[in-house]
């Protein structure tokens, strides 16, 4: 289905620039080395890539959430001037499906589409508009089928089976203690969370450049180059060595770039046309081009003694995984393990279900299962406090989990786990000043300059929440990162080159790598080379793991370089390596002072070390949901202060205070940025962010209708950073990216409840819920821990 063209002479792309930087040492706030090109507009993002003779790719997507495809005719599109290729599933030479955990997602759909926006055909043309018009000329004959749009309905026997393996993608059950435990005080609740989008600003995009031997170079924004490469190679039917990936500038990720989007498509088109092919989604397409955060329905029952000790938690969590598996398996496990919160819970019975439906596929997003569970368990803790007549902070502190105790999934809580301390700290942050509402600047009132209240009906509320998250990949995955460090002399100065495949997605990873190399080697200048597949895998920039994993790999590679230098000093100068250290470009002996300059010791050589760092072993959960599944745990406590216009349901968040346990603040400025940015996403989920779905179709695929917090919505953040070293982690650090997103949502909702006295069991909280116009959740009897997908509730 390809028109043959004269192959233009291919220009090899220059590799991205990697300037030398002089970062601070670890623990110092240091300016990011990509900051200057980013403010000048010179940093090259994946949508900025350009090559002479390149073509534009475009994707035909299903308008229906569930349909059979009876025929597909591309001939008219192919005949259009300026169109170079129109490809369908028949043109996928290798594996026709992909997926990180379960390869169940078609590269291009064949006989059936399972969600609105599923790719069916791809086009390469000489202009994006030509490509778009060519899509209109592809005729597809659909038989529209009834979509399965409700996760609970997907469980029922009568629901159409969306995949051969059935609609239940995964069920994780945790049994802990006595399932028949009873308690003095019992509270039940049903909670719901809408579908959140990552809304990263840089759309899915990249450039595929064919080589002359049947291979391809892909310049791409992603979170994990090697898993992309393996999936791309598999579908292209190529040896992985023939598919080379280079990280291009990434405009945010938050989990939304873990799955493939246009990677295989661009490579297919490039190989078919023998031309470079660029694909860039627009915002609407981006909403269809990546997975979202799982919507969930969660039913909980908490039992406690009359003096406020938790006795049991029973929970049934139902996640809508959408049409394909993505990383839903792991989300289902995570949610189950975090379902009870960071509390000492003697007895627990948790069922976590992940369902296939015809809704948009859901997968990884910052917080990964812990976000949903946290909203529910924290809402329950507030309910329980109310039932007990206790202060919600006191109840949480009373039940806070501590090192040496066991989580309900059996793993011992490793130190440090300063749960109570974080809550105490956040409570001790001075309250924001409460200005007289009457006569205030309108911009400081709910509704702002919309001029809706001048102070009438405005109530203030305060809420607290605790959250936690596993850092790193879990449940038996042998996760690792690779780093190559080379030390040489350039311009009469020692220079370290750090090469990893770790994805800088905005978090500041290249800066922290440079800080580590500078600290470990006692030198000034470091170059962090562009991330690509010429070096071994670094694993994913997700699960808050990359500073831990790649940080540790860079540290170990530097240590290996250092050992090499010290061995040489021992040979040449007879110094005891145990007595040596590196400082200011010199080898220094504790006893004898400066031994030799690094420039002299190294001369014209390059000292290179390549290492792999693996974290400690984890194990999958057993049939009772027990096991040492996670590597590390990070905790955060939040306090939200809100003001609500109780007549119109409008909200102004006044302030968020946060206390987070970070182990070691590697770059305090960047770390604060993670906390503030994570809280903003939690605020968005609490108040405004939801992909609206009607009959399986997305109703708000734009920034006009999918709202994310603006600078007017975000309050000041007061962040307390607690540095208690984790003895097992490099520098004692803990991952920091996710915890801020987890507890901020329930803290804000708790504050809204405090201000309004309403239950508010669904996020995002809408004005009609606040003023009491919303329908109440259906009054169904609670069936915690019911034993099968066909639970008795229906």
């Amino acid at each position, binding site marked *: 289905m390809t028109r043959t063209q004269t192959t233009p002479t291919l220009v090899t792309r220059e590799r991205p620039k990697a300037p030398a930087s002089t970062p601070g040492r670890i623990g110092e706030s240091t300016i990011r080395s990509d900051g200057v090109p980013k403010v*000048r507009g010179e940093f090259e993002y994946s949508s900025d890539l350009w090559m002479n003779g390149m073509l534009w790719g475009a994707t035909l997507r299903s308008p229906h959430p569930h349909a059979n495809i009876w025929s597909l005719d591309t001939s008219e599109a192919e005949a259009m001037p300026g169109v170079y290729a129109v490809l369908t599933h028949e043109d996928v030479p290798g594996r026709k499906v992909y997926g990180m955990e379960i390869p169940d997602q078609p590269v291009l759909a064949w006989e059936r589409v399972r969600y609105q926006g599923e790719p069916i055909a791809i086009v390469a043309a000489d202009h994006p508009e030509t490509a778009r018009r060519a899509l209109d000329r592809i005729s597809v004959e659909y038989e529209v089928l009834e979509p399965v749009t409700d996760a609970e309905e997907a469980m029922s026997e009568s629901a159409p089976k969306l995949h051969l393996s059935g609609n239940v993608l995964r069920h994780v059950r945790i049994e802990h203690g006595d399932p028949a435990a009873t308690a003095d005080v019992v509270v039940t609740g049903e909670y719901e969370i809408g579908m959140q989008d990552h809304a990263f*600003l840089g759309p899915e995009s990249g450039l595929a450049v064919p080589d002359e031997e049947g291979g391809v170079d892909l310049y791409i924004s992603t979170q994990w180059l090697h898993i992309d490469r393996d999936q791309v190679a598999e579908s292209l039917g190529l040896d992985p060595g023939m598919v080379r990936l280079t990280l291009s500038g990434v405009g*945010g990720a938050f989990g939304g770039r873990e799955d493939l989007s246009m990677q295989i498509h661009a490579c297919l088109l490039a190989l078919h046309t023998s031309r470079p092919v660029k694909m860039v989604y627009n*915002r609407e397409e981006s909403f269809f081009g990546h997975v979202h955060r799982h919507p969930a329905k969660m039913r909980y029952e908490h039992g406690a003694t009359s003096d406020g000790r938790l006795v049991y938690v029973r929970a049934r969590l139902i996640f809508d995984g959408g049409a394909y598996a993505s990383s839903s398996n792991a989300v289902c496990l995570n949610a189950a393990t975090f379902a009870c919160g960071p509390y000492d819970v003697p007895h627990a019975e948790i069922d976590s279900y992940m369902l296939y439906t015809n809704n948009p596929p859901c997968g990884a997003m910052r917080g990964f299962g812990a976000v949903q569970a946290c909203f529910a368990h924290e809402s329950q803790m507030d309910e329980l406090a109310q039932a007990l007549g206790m202060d919600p902070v006191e109840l949480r502190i009373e039940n806070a989990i501590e090192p040496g105790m066991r989580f309900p999934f059996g793993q011992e809580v490793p130190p440090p786990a300063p749960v109570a301390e974080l809550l105490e700290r956040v409570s001790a942050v001075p309250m924001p000043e409460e200005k007289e509402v009457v006569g205030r600047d309108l911009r400081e009132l709910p509704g702002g300059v919309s001029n809706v209240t001048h102070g009438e009906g405005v109530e203030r509320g305060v809420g607290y929440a605790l959250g936690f998250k596993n850092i790193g990949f879990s449940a038996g995955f042998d996760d690792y990162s690779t780093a190559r460090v080379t030390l040489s002399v350039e311009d009469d100065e020692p220079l370290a080159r750090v090469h990893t495949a770790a994805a800088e997605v905005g978090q500041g990873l290249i800066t922290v790598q440079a800080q580590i190399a500078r600290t470990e080697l006692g030198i000034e200048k470091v170059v962090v080379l562009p991330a690509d597949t010429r070096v071994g895998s670094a694993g994913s920039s997700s699960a808050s793991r990359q500073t831990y994993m790649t940080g540790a790999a860079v540290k170990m590679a530097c240590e290996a370089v250092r050992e090499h230098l010290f061995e040489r000093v021992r040979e040449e100068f007879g110094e005891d390596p145990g007595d040596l250290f590196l400082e200011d470009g010199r080898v220094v002996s504790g006893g004898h002072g400066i031994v030799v300059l690094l420039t002299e010791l190294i001369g014209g050589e390059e000292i290179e070390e390549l290492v792999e760092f693996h974290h400690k072993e984890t194990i999958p959960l057993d049939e009772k949901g027990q096991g040492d599944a996670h590597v590390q745990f990070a905790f955060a406590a939040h306090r939200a202060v809100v003001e609500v216009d109780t007549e119109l349901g409008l909200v102004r968040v006044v302030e968020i205070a946060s206390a987070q346990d970070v182990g070691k603040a590697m770059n305090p400025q960047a770390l604060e940025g993670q906390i503030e940015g994570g809280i903003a*996403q939690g605020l968005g989920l609490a108040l405004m962010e939801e992909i609206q779905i009607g009959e399986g179709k997305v109703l708000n695929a734009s920034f006009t209708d999918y709202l994310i917090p603006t600078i007017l919505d975000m309050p000041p953040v007061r962040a307390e950073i607690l540095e208690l070293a984790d003895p097992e982690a490099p520098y004692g650090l803990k991952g920091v990216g996710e915890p801020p997103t987890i507890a901020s949502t329930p803290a804000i909702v708790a504050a809204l409840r405090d201000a309004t006295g309403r239950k508010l069991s669904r996020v995002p909280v809408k004005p009609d819920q606040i003023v009491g116009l919303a329908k109440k959740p259906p009054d169904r009897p609670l069936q915690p821990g019911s034993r099968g997908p066909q639970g008795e509730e229906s």
Partner: protein
Amino acid sequence: MRLSCRVNGEDRQVEGVWEGESLLYVLRERLGLPGSKNACEQGECGSCSVYLGGVLVCSCLVLAGQAEGCEILTVEGLAEGEALHPVQEAFVETGAVQCGFCTPGLIISTHDLLERNPDPTDAEIREALAGNLCRCTGYEKILDAVRLATIRTGTNEDPS
């Protein structure tokens, strides 16, 4: 069609522009100036902000033809040689840049704010930048950046 305009102080002419192209597309794909960003192409996020004839616009909402004969200033035209504009400097120093995709638009918008109001209050900063979405920072450090830029560009003395 042919388009002639003056971009960042330089006369530029491009041939073969399709009539439906936006100014953003022409800047990014035809003039080699991808600094203005394509985050939403719906006029909602401010990432493509440029000056057109001295007026702050979302270049995704401007048809290329409207720029005929006009003066355009993009983020690439703010620095003088190696020296960053004080607004750019402030964004780097305060940690207001993470992924950086919103940064060019925010820098142009901040530049415009300070032209109009050399000493804005926090409320005025928030109002002026409410059309620029950022997904990474939570805006706290962006406020810091604008406050610092205000000091650096204004008649105010740097208190530090």
